[in-house]
């Protein structure tokens, strides 16, 4: 056995399927967004709750700093934040680790350094227990949930995008639409 190349194929226990990748799904009328419950935050002087953000559009970004697809999307989110924060958009990073604590993703100092490295000024919640990830039924890094001024989920989607590409413009239009309502 020791000399046998097993070719043990791994595919079954995957956190998701390949169906309908990256397609943002509009929810007509929306569904109520689960409340945020994280107690550990960065770039916020106290834990944020959606119930306190009524009247603002909220974009949740589920990410982790070890995910290249996530970090390459951050410049787009920083651009949205700079452009729309004063007009009523709140971007919230939901930092959900992939691995157990031994990988360092749970460490608040590591996350703080990642935020500084990427120029992220918007609030980030540590979702170390995956409670928020599970509440929203998220399966991939990065994922996005756009919530309207009434606290209803209106658009969801996932997958890396870049400044001024098609997905960037689509999310930009959705943000503008909800800000205008």
């Amino acid at each position, binding site marked *: *056995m*020791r*000399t046998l190349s*097993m070719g043990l194929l*791994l595919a*079954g226990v*995957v956190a*998701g399927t390949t169906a309908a990748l990256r397609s943002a799904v509009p929810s007509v009328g929306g569904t109520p967004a689960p409340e945020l419950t994280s107690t550990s935050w960065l770039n916020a002087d106290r834990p944020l709750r959606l119930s306190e953000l009524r009247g603002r559009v909220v974009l949740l970004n589920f990410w982790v700093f*070890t995910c290249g697809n996530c970090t390459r999307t951050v410049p787009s989110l920083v651009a949205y934040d700079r452009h729309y924060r004063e007009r009523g958009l709140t971007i919230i990073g939901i930092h959900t680790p992939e691995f157990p604590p031994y*990988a360092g993703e749970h460490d608040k100092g590591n996350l703080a350094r990642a935020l500084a490295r990427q120029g992220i000024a918007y609030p980030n919640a540590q979702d170390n227990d995956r409670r928020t990830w599970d509440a929203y039924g998220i399966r991939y890094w990065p994922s996005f949930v756009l919530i309207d001024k009434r606290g209803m989920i209106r658009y969801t989607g996932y997958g890396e995008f870049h400044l001024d590409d098609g997905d960037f413009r689509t999310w930009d239009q959705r943000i503008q639409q909800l800000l205008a309502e």
Partner: protein
Amino acid sequence: MTKFAMLVLATLAIAACHDHPPLVALEAGPPLRLVAAPRVRINARLKPALELDDGTVLRFDSPRVTSDSAYFAAAPTVATPPSGSRHGTLRLSVCPAGERLCRLVVMAVAW
């Protein structure tokens, strides 16, 4: 490991792959080697972990990564202890090209 155990493992592996194309293969060495399927990239910023049943955590690594350090450019390997547990849980983050996202893969393995 007995031939019977090998057969069980192979059966489990095939069953696990029934609904999805294989993403990676674990090749017994030594050292153990993770080989990604074509167009599947293994996240190098989160080194794959082999959590042995005795609590030991081994991390796969390779000196060759992509220019942005995001993915392995050569199959990552890990040396296993000469004795002790020969089974555990494999955990890795895979980012298939074209999907523009990362997913977590967790699976029981033995060698």
